[in-house]
């Protein structure tokens, strides 16, 4: 919980604020769900790197992973959970407040 005097940067959630995780959440927010290959290409990550971030997000309850097969090909779908949607919204709000504060300081 934040107070009115707290700096907006203090509201950033480490689990979400990492650039690649934020990217994953943005893509999932827009797409509803996305498969591993699309996420990898969109974010320019390696298999291992993306896998680690997805696992961290899944452990935090922000993303749900659905692993299965299509034909003989394994396919993993990632989807934003309601908790992940709220966390992303809170993160974007905090970023917006920070930018407004920076802009306000620059203008004064």
């Amino acid at each position, binding site marked *: 919980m934040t107070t009115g005097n707290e700096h907006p940067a203090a509201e950033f959630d480490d689990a979400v604020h990492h*650039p*690649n995780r*934020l*990217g994953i959440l*943005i*893509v999932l927010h*827009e*797409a*509803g*769900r*996305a*498969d*591993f*290959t*699309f996420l990898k290409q*969109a*974010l320019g990550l390696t298999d291992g790197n993306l896998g680690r971030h997805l696992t961290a997000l899944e452990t935090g309850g922000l993303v749900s992973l659905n692993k299965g097969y299509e034909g003989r090909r394994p*396919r993993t*779908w990632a*989807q934003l959970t309601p908790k992940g949607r709220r966390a992303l919204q809170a993160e974007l709000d905090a*970023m917006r407040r920070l*930018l407004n504060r920076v802009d306000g300081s620059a203008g004064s």
Partner: protein
Amino acid sequence: MEMSTEQLVGLRARVRATQHARSMPLIVIGALLLNYGITSFGAHPVAWRYGAPLAFVLLWGLAKVIEANVGVGTGRFDYLIAAGFVFTAVNALMLRPFSSWFNLYQLEGLWVVIVGVALFALALTTHDRVLTLVALVLVIVGAVIAVTTHRYYVAGFYRGGALPSPNEWPNQLISGIGVGLAVLGLAYYGREREQL
């Protein structure tokens, strides 16, 4: 390293380009309007009461094909809900007493309004300005047709299903808008492909 705002916006744009989220609705709705304008809202090839909802079902189907092939989901587009709304509203207008209140031209206008309202709801969920603007144009054009054609008499419409001449201005206007939307959709399709 921080992910810049531009990069986040770029990611969102890439997802939407992959979904062809703007071009597909423009092309499909444009084709629908062109088809019905040319055929004077006749029953061929598919009657309006089925064609309009089918257009939204088609959009859902295309989105699912993209999802299966490329791995990006359909997002916040509730095409099936829109199809259900359009089907219900269009058919409700065919029921009495509504059908006896309007002539065929007015019904055409109201059907276009219904499609515009469905597209408007979809556009709002995705904050797409172009689709929102197009939806508003459809609502306004449909309303203008419905309001300004109240004196037109269409002989035998209710009994024999006779249709007005395809040369009447409402159908020409609807056809023109259909062509415009389809061309705009194709232009956006090209831009979306460049973004991928």
